[in-house]
């Protein structure tokens, strides 16, 4: 205890802060690739079928978009939780639970969409 001056709760907050920064760094790369992909697809006039033809069964695109979804599911709930804490009086376990539900919802919806491209 004496060698670890932070409380568990404070250390947890620090880890969340770090996780949000780390996921932001991942998102920066993912968003650039994703935007480039959209521009490429639109400019080359790819149809939905053509796009699906390239993503279905592709482990590379599956992996890329799963990383994207994981980063979003981590980044957004931590940020929204922090905004709520700063702008309203809502804090504590109920807010943490709401943020966890938000994270689970984002992850679920994201994985469902990615699976739709892959399967």
């Amino acid at each position: 205890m004496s060698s670890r001056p932070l409380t568990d709760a404070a250390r947890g907050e620090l880890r969340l802060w770090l996780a949000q920064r780390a996921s932001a760094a991942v998102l920066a790369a993912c968003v650039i690739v994703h935007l480039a992909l959209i521009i490429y697809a639109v400019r080359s006039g790819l149809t939905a079928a053509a796009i699906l033809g390239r993503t279905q069964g592709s482990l590379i695109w599956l992996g890329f978009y799963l990383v994207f979804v994981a980063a979003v599911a981590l980044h957004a709930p931590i940020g929204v939780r922090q905004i709520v804490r700063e702008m309203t009086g809502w804090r504590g376990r109920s807010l943490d639970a709401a943020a966890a539900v938000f994270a689970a919802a984002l992850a679920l919806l994201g994985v469902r969409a990615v699976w739709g491209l892959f399967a």
Partner: protein
Amino acid sequence: MSGAASTLSVKVWRGREDGAFQDFAVPQAQNQTVLDVVTWIQRHLDPTLAYRFACRVGMCGSCAMTVNGRPRWTCRTQVAAVAGDGGLSLAPLANLPVIKDLATDMTAFFDKWQRAGGRFRPTGTRADEFATVPPATPGRRAADAGIECIGCGVCHAACDIVRWNPDYLGPAALNRAWTLVNDVRDAGGEARLAAVAGDAGCHACHSTESCREHCPKHINPTAAIAGLKRATTLALLKGRL
């Protein structure tokens, strides 16, 4: 010049938080500072006006006020540089309780310096030789960048995060902590990093840089706070926090 012939219209905050602005007409003079204006009002128009100053040369940090909406050190602020067509509007510093008129209670501001571990913790004793700290070392340079703070409270008044979260340690206290983190003679170590971490500490900073924009000493507390974020992250990853 003919400055004495014209008058300056000055609105001055009177009372506490629930006070109001009072109008004064003050003769303009050459090289007049905002502090000169306040002093003139107290000496010639209303001796009950409360304000705070000491050195009048930008060293002591006691005369800061809100001048036309911006926090400034009034002893080094020329009227000519800030008074628009509407003259001057003078109010106490924001984000601190008002004692009376232009004087704020700075207790909370300096308590935050203590909470941020702003006290020097020596590693040596008086029996030791003087420490040699070469000017070119990175730690010394980082400490030098923030060491000229005069504790005027301008950055604290300018900070949006302090306004949202009164517990937030604020730019000045965190800047002080960063100078000590970089002081090789200091033994504050992880205890200080723990004191500045978290919700009310460096991690609350959104880097809006109001502190840097308003600091009369041109210090960049945002950079100091970023340094604290790096130092706390490193200590966390190494299992020392």
